[in-house]
């Protein structure tokens, strides 16, 4: 309150004696302008994109440092389990009659069944046959961060520690709004460029003579609405590219590849196919480049989806308006017909 008053005071003084105060005023305004420009830049697609990348890199380092601190004991536990089962087998073999094969097989089957159950329960509790350092390599952590804030949630890597879980919740709380900002920004800018492109192509391919005949020379910039089929073509082309890329890299079948691309871009993220899982026969550098390209692919794909969302919403809006007008006309027509049929005396009642 007081601040505003002082501001208005300076302003009024400035109007009274403008020449003396203006330099200071200008300096302040410059700083303000700078600040505003900075904020505006951060809200543009470049700034938001940079912010997203920086945020995910910071998150990756945080998760690596949190998750690799704890040494996972489950690997040792499983080894102990296996040894104990071998011992049990030995004891069973000693006890039983060696020459009764069916009985022996029966016993063995029981033991193996319980072993299988225990191992699968250990897997459910987080046994992975890998050490945390192997799991939480930098690209994998980057992918994990991406899957948090884009809400994909592959779930091939999950935090095991309590701190990791808490950090995930906090990271998501701040990351998701940021991501949504990115999503809408990039959607808007892509929609704009796509619309311009579409208009260019439209005008090139379209026969211009009719328009010129109608308008007489100058063609006003009429609003071109991109049909939703065009959006769908773009999306399907993107998915197709991704399909071929992943199928070649990860040696998946094409169907699996399509399945992965669609579930990723729809934010479902089943996690049964994850790029970079085919670690065993690749060098580390190629893995990292692949993961980086995956990262870019998913981020860009989300942007494309946002673009299509933008464009399609526009089209749906226009269609709805048209439909409403049609409906209105229809009703009007219907009412007129009624009044024609039923005679003039019922007119008031039809009005109700």
């Amino acid at each position: 309150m007081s601040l505003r008053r002082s501001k208005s005071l300076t302003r009024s003084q400035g109007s009274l004696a403008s020449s003396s105060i203006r330099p200071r005023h200008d300096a302040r305004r410059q700083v303000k302008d700078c600040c505003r420009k900075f904020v505006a830049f951060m809200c543009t697609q470049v700034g938001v994109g940079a912010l997203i990348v920086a945020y995910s890199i910071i998150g990756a380092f945080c998760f690596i440092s949190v998750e690799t601190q704890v040494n996972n004991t489950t690997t040792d536990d499983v080894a102990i389990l296996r040894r104990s089962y071998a011992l049990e087998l030995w004891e069973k073999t000693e006890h039983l009659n060696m020459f009764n094969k069916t009985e022996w097989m029966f016993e063995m089957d029981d033991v193996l069944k319980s072993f299988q159950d225990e191992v699968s329960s250990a897997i459910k509790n987080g046994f992975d046959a890998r050490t945390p350092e192997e799991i939480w390599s930098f690209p994998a952590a980057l992918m994990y961060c991406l899957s948090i804030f884009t809400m994909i949630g592959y779930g091939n890597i999950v935090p095991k520690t309590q701190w990791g879980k808490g950090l995930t919740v906090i990271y998501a709380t701040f990351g998701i709004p940021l991501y949504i900002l990115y999503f809408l920004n990039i959607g808007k800018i892509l929609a704009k460029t796509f619309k311009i492109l579409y208009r260019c192509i439209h005008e090139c391919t379209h026969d211009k003579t009719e328009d010129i005949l109608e308008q007489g020379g100058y063609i006003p910039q009429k609003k071109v609405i991109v049909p939703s089929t065009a959006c769908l073509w773009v999306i399907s082309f993107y998915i197709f590219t991704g399909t071929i890329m992943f199928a070649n890299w990860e040696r998946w079948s094409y169907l699996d590849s399509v399945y992965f691309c669609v579930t990723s871009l729809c934010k479902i993220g089943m996690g049964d196919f994850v790029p970079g899982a085919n670690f065993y026969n690749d060098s580390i550098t190629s893995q990292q480049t692949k993961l980086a390209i995956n990262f870019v692919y998913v981020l860009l794909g989300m942007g494309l989806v946002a673009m299509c969302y933008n464009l399609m919403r526009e089209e749906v809006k226009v269609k709805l308006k048209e439909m409403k007008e049609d409906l209105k006309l229809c009703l009007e027509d219907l009412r007129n017909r009624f009044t024609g049929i039923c005679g003039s005396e019922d007119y008031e009642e039809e009005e109700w």
Partner: protein
Amino acid sequence: MTLKRSVRRRQKPPFAQRAKDQCRKFTAFMFSNVGIIMLVVIYTIAGSFMFIAIEGKEAMVRTEKSNKEKNLLALKLWNISCCVSNVFNESSYRNLVDREILAFQRKIVKQAQKGSGSGENPWSFPGAFLYSLTVITTIGYGNISPRTSLGKITTILYAIIGMPLFLLYLSNIGDVMAKSFKWIYAKVCLCRICPGVAKRRLLRERRKTLEMIRRQELEDLSSSSGISRSSSTKISGESTTGTNFTDVDIDVEAVIQAEPHTVIVPLTTCVMIMIGYILCGATLFSRWEAWGVLDGSYFCFISLTSIGFGDIVPGTQVLRNSKESIVEVSFILCAVYLLLGMALIAMCFNLMQEQVIHKLRSIKQGGTDEDVDISVSPGRNREDRDRNAV
């Protein structure tokens, strides 16, 4: 008179008109709230039956395969113990057996990472129901996933049709819930139900704010050395407060009379509702599944933000005790929790967006400074976006 008219009206419209009316009513119902809930539920149930039909057989085959592998291992062990090694040398025998079991374990791990390794068929009805729900809500736990190529294609198509449907559900139900919540808030929390109390309270609040304003102005006066400009502001301030006092009664009446949909629910309430819902779910699931409270709230948060890692999924704890009915109940419980929670979050975003817009408007009216406007607008956009995305 009215009766007569109604009778006549009932007779009047010809069959086509009546049919059209019925049609319109029917579609209105279908797109109304009840209809959309039914539609989502039916779509999910249909999807679950479809997935059972497609995937169930394959899962059975897989369990048979794993059983066969187990038998194969037993045969190998038999070979080792009867023919290959000396039975009476324990250490060598144990080495051999250890190697075989290690190979077996690797196979189990691979299988378990691909799907369920415990050998049970995951495509029971509740499991398939939860799977369909996680597909259309884009949560995607991934604890159950299709193995056959037909199943994968079906999943893609199912998602493409189902997701817009679910978005429709969210926006509709969010709207309705926001409206009803606002009504309840107005009636209960602000005591609009009995006008006397509300009036007195509002009057008290007004008086307090006025006193505060006056005190502040007095302080301003005392602090500023008497310049003519400040005295003029003081005069204007007093004049405004004077008019305010006379207007108070009318104002209060107007506020009380106002419709409940003009009430604005504060932002903190929305946040509290969301946190409360997550904590409620956490306690519920930690009771039911024997998780810790942290794990439970982690699960709820990850599910409701539609991230859905799938590392913690309801039904796994009880699966080991192999009580089928309990597993089913926990799956259904989870599905209901998710459907309600998504709608609740949509409601909260709806309310929050409204409040932010209201605040923005008040700021615009209050100060004509452009700086304030610019600094606030990104925030508002973000809220809008949150809501849009949801």
